[in-house]
């Protein structure tokens, strides 16, 4: 077995301006611990308090969405893996990306509802947010654009980008990117 080339990995991370990344089963306490590290990095990076709060909020909503989805379906911890990356783009914006396995059919619904959110301006997003907030808890569609996704869209400076890639056993890998 060849040794993992950490030097090359580090170089990739640095070139893509990746501040923080995680891949694996994600627990409630892990979300908190990584979130804590993220807040410290943002403070050390002299992020404006509002920007830091937006990045943290988007990270929390993305990871808790993944937890809720996998728990609702009773998936094993291994299937409840998440891939999370916080980076900066060339314009200095913070970028929060997350990916996880989902049922392919749920993925189609999710991607189209994210594309629909992309058509809304800030005022329309706020209206959608307030409407979703008033919806009874049991009427929330767990695979559609719930409150968390609308909140992420509101905190983003450009439309959310979602990609679906086919995986085994009727599942797909869902990737979501938010530019703050």
């Amino acid at each position, binding site marked *: 077995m060849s040794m993992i080339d950490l030097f090359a990995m580090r170089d990739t991370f640095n070139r893509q301006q990746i501040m923080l990344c995680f891949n694996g089963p994600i627990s*409630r306490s892990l*979300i*908190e611990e990584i979130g*804590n590290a993220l807040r410290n990095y943002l403070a050390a990076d002299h992020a404006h*308090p*509002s920007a830091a*709060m*937006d990045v*943290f*909020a988007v990270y*929390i*909503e993305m990871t*808790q969405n993944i*937890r*809720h989805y996998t728990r609702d379906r009773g998936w094993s911890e291994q299937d409840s893996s998440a891939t999370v990356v916080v980076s900066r783009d060339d314009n200095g914006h913070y970028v929060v990306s997350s990916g996880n396995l989902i049922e392919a059919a749920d993925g189609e619904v999710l991607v189209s509802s994210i594309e629909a959110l992309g058509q809304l301006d800030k005022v329309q997003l*706020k209206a959608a947010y*307030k409407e979703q*907030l*008033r919806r009874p*808890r049991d009427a929330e569609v767990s695979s559609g654009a*719930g*409150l*968390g996704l609308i*909140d992420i869209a509101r905190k983003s400076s450009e439309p959310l980008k979602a990609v679906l890639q086919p995986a085994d056993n009727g599942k797909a890998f869902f990737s979501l990117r938010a530019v703050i």
Partner: protein
Amino acid sequence: MTDITIAGTQSTPDIRTEWSTGRLFMQGDSYPENSYELFNQIFEWIERFLADGGRPLSLELNLLYLNTSSIKAMMDIFDLLEAAHQEHKPVAVNWYYDQRNERVAELAEEFKEDCSFPFEIIPSPQA
């Protein structure tokens, strides 16, 4: 009447009630995965207080970041206060925030939009 005292954690706020003075204090971040259990205790305390008589109730908030699950729970609490206000019961919210973080003021403003009872958003120079 029993008061509630819940020490905060990294993802949950400090919560304290004062039945004798009609005040409820919440301070810190709130982003538990499931906010229902935590907020339900507060909701029930407020319901009992409002049912007990016409004494004034005020929520003294120093809340910072709320995840959407906590926002939904807070909305339920403000709806409860709004219903009491419609019955002419004296209720109020004072939400204190650090001026350096305008996101907290924006969050409070969005709640205030749906409330007709006294709802003050108060900048404080220190955190």
